[in-house]
């Protein structure tokens, strides 16, 4: 259920502005890769190119190749809708559908895919909620609105919603930045469990978090405000945080940035 991501020469634009420039990297299956870097360096933009969400933004445009095993996501005739069913995403702020119950939120993706049978849905909803470590907290109120949960529960609900459609890859865009430390811990534990099934890419501003959850870490930076973001280096997390090969990475990690 997990695939390798192989990005080569990827450049993304907002209108005429080149947001990220010529990025190449490989993400191994069943691993967690963290993207770190200062605000505006293009980590989130890059993440969004991995499931073709970048082009949803008006003026958003991408050049280059993203291979998911043998398939180029930007190849001719590839349907972005199909790509997003294979590459799931969890956002910065928990965004459960406010008009839907907890159950319907998790089932939403399956219903879009055409699964209608109550029994199939029940099974997947339970499996996904268990997978997101939320089942025990919500099993008695599956028909209550998803927006009534706490922030951390909502985010785990969003994770359950994302994994319900059994994607190959799970992208997480600062999934804990709106959460308190306890909820953050719950999500981090969850990421550790999810990586046994999924390829996970996580953007984070919290370097301890990157150090705690990821196997590989990529550092992004931009030379000046208004210029394009670049990948400075990607390496094993341990190495990035102990002995990075680029001086800028060490400056950023040790807080001597700028």
């Amino acid at each position, binding site marked *: 259920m997990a695939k390798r991501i192989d990005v080569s020469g990827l450049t993304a634009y907002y209108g005429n502005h080149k947001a990220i420039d010529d990025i190449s990297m490989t993400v191994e299956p069943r691993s967690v890769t963290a993207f770190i870097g200062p605000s505006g360096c293009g980590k989130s933009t890059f993440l969004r190119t991995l*499931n073709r*969400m970048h082009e*949803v933004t*008006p003026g958003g445009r991408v050049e280059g190749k993203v291979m998911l095993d043998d398939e180029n996501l930007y190849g001719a005739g590839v349907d972005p*809708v*199909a*790509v*997003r*069913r294979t590459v*799931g*995403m969890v*956002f910065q*702020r928990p*965004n*459960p*559908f*406010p*008009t*839907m*119950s907890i159950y319907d939120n998790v089932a*939403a*993706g399956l219903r*879009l*895919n055409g699964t209608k049978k109550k029994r199939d849905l029940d099974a997947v909803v339970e499996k996904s909620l268990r997978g997101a470590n939320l089942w025990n907290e919500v099993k008695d109120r599956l028909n*209550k*609105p998803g*927006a*009534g949960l706490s922030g951390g529960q909502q985010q785990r609900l*969003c994770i359950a*919603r*994302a994994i319900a*459609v059994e994607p190959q890859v799970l992208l997480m865009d600062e999934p804990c930045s709106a959460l308190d430390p306890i909820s953050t811990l719950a999500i981090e534990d969850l990421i550790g469990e999810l990586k046994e099934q999924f390829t996970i890419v996580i953007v984070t501003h919290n370097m301890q978090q990157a150090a705690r959850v990821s196997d590989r870490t990529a550092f992004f930076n931009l030379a000046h405000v208004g210029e394009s973001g670049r990948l400075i280096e990607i390496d094993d997390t341990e190495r990035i945080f102990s002995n990075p090969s680029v001086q800028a990475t060490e400056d950023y990690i040790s807080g001597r940035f700028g």
Partner: protein
Amino acid sequence: MDATPTATLPPAKGQPRAVTRPGDRIFFGLTRGSGILLLLVMAAIAAFLTFRTFSAVSQDHGNFLTTFEWNADATPPVFGIAVLAYGTIVSSIIAMVIAVPVAIGIALFISHYAPRRLAGALAYVVDLLAAVPSIVYGLWGALYLVPRMQGLTAWLNEYLGWTVVFKQSNPGTAARSLFTVGILLAIMILPIITNVSREVFRQVPKAHEEAALALGATRWEVVRTAVLPFARSGIISASMLGLGRALGETMAVATVLSSSPVLTAHILDPAGGTFAQNIASHFGEATNFGRDALIASGLVLFVITLLVNGAARLIIARRKEYSGANA
């Protein structure tokens, strides 16, 4: 009184008094004054309507609720609202059935489908539609729409006549019917429903749309799972605004409808009437008593509108926890 120290007295020990600033107090006074004024106006209207209604209805020799004809100035006065209530409701229902889906479609196209420039132009045209005075709609309806409804009327009568609703008692008569009125009203209430819905659609948080997109939703599925549910209460409010206008529309209806005290299920027949149309048609030559009778019918319209609004609020409130307002 010692629990609430006045402005001149120093606050009691251990009871820190909230600081009041003149700006806050003026603003508070203004807002409260506006609120009270609104209630007073409403109470005054209600009292006026009720008083005049009682003086008229008490002398009605027919049953006010079930009588068909409106002869308030005859001796003895015989008048009732049956035809008017029926005509008002039927023409409004026709207008809503046509206008709501079309308006939602236009609003969705403007907010989610059309390229930005086209969307702006289209929104402007819809606004323009709202600026046309109702008497102009009426004239257009009577001079242009009615003759051109002849064909559609005949077609409906021929192929859907078996439904009774689309049966014409005298085929070939001018299409000055409740059906034509309904179509005209639909065009008139289209802009307000479109504009309000469009604003609601625009306010759907990007996060909800992206959530649907990230699950692999197509554009239509995004609209279905994220946009429409979020906008549901807004669409209902928009429709109620439109319905309010349709119920109360006067000049356009009076110009187009060939009114008569006939209550019929055949909506293609040139017959019937509406509250507002009836008031407009009779007010000019009515005596004081006749005017009171017309005001009585106005009160009924007022109550119907109130009930409709109440029902809409109930629908919205019933699913409040799902409204998305707390997201």
